[in-house]
């Protein structure tokens, strides 16, 4: 291992947050380009399945993380539960914030069709979203945090897939429209509202 690789390994171990290539370079007093081969070397060294640690690129920087292989033992040693899963309301609120940020709570409520105050409060408390100023109407705006990217294994927000990929096809939309109109005939204990809600 080169000295530069050894230093970078140590920096990644010490830093509580992912470190951008530029910050690593200036700490090591080298050009970012000089760091590229070192990061490749470390990436190969800490490739998944090789060691107990994996080198990851998340939240715009580099960081070391444990291999899931160690999870049962880590749970026994640290007695700390991992991040609890998200409730459906929290996940919906988070997805709206992630895609539309900065976005206000009223806007989230409009899209979800229900008030989302407690989901928003939980996401704030868990550090997945944060305030980012106010809208022109004075409503607090929210955005996602670096912790969100880190916990979801994303390098940046650009890695979120295009959400229109989940939209129904025009044919399916036409069908939904027809069903809304024809729901009476299709109704066998299931109304139009419920039928659409399940799609």
């Amino acid at each position, binding site marked *: 291992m080169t000295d530069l690789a050894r230093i970078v390994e140590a920096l990644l*171990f*010490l830093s*509580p947050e992912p470190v951008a290539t530029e910050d690593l370079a200036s700490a090591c007093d080298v050009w970012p380009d000089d760091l590229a081969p070192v990061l490749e070397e470390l990436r190969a060294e800490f490739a998944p399945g090789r060691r107990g640690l994996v080198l*990851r690129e998340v939240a715009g920087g580099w960081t*070391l*993380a*444990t*291999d*899931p*292989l*160690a*999870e049962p033992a*880590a749970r026994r040693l640290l007695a700390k539960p*991992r991040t609890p*899963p*998200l409730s*459906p309301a929290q996940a*919906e609120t*988070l*997805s*709206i914030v*992630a895609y539309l940020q900065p976005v*206000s*709570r*009223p806007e989230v*409520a*409009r*899209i*979800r*069709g*229900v*008030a989302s105050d407690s989901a928003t409060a939980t996401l704030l408390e868990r550090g997945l979203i944060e305030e980012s100023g*106010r809208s022109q*109407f*004075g*409503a607090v705006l929210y955005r996602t945090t670096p912790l969100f990217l*880190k916990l*979801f*294994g*994303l390098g940046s927000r650009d890695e*979120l*897939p295009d*959400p229109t990929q*989940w*939209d*129904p096809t025009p044919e399916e939309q036409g069908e*939904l*429209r027809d069903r*809304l*109109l*024809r729901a*009476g005939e299709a*109704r066998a204990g*299931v*109304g*139009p*509202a*419920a039928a659409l*809600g399940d*799609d």
Partner: protein
Amino acid sequence: MSAVSDLQLDLEVFSGPFDLLLTLVLREEVDLLEVELAEVVLAYLDHLESRGELDLEATTEFLVLIAALLELKSRLMLPRADDDLLDLEPSEAAEELLARMLEAKRYRSAADHLRELLAAEEGVRYRSAPPPPWLRRGGLDELPAGVYAPERLGAALGGLLRHPPQVDVTHLGQVRVSVAERLEVLRRLLRRGATTFDEAVRGADRVTVCITLFALLEMYKQGEATWEQSEPFGEIAIVAGAEPAPRAEAAAT
């Protein structure tokens, strides 16, 4: 099963589940003008009470549906409305509902994707140990004086002094507006003399506009108010009727 599809109605012109009524109205098999929407709302409130719980999701669904019906009915009932105003096809109402549902669905699917991402990260842990003592960053007390600009505080405070344009109340909006409230608004305006519909709904969101129109229809029915629109899309002038009806409030809320 959502509370909305459970809702059974027993109205003068229709008896059966609410979602069937919706369907029949959209297919023009039941005349919306003959449906007492206030009765539907009352039935829903009774229904909620009997369930003993408030299901926000279902309540909102109901409100969206009833608001769509209110809007449709309002348009049908507008006095002197010409063909332009009557052209809201049932398909347009369906279109509106569809658009909302698609948008909500898009982010529900994105939410599912996020939950999958999080599940895939199961077992990935990051180091959270504090840095060793020789690396501890100094506190703020080691910073030189004046690193922050006091103007930042003045500007932040100024922002907090701002009153939102009225439209902002919609952010707590659609679930919280009631016919009783809108009756109150209309009566207050009318106590000061004639008013206009625009005045009564200034800055209001769509649902509030619908509910206000519904409140106005209720006042009209009770002889509390009449209104006039001299041209399509023109201003709607509202004047107090000859005989304010003492029963009006009980009937409408």
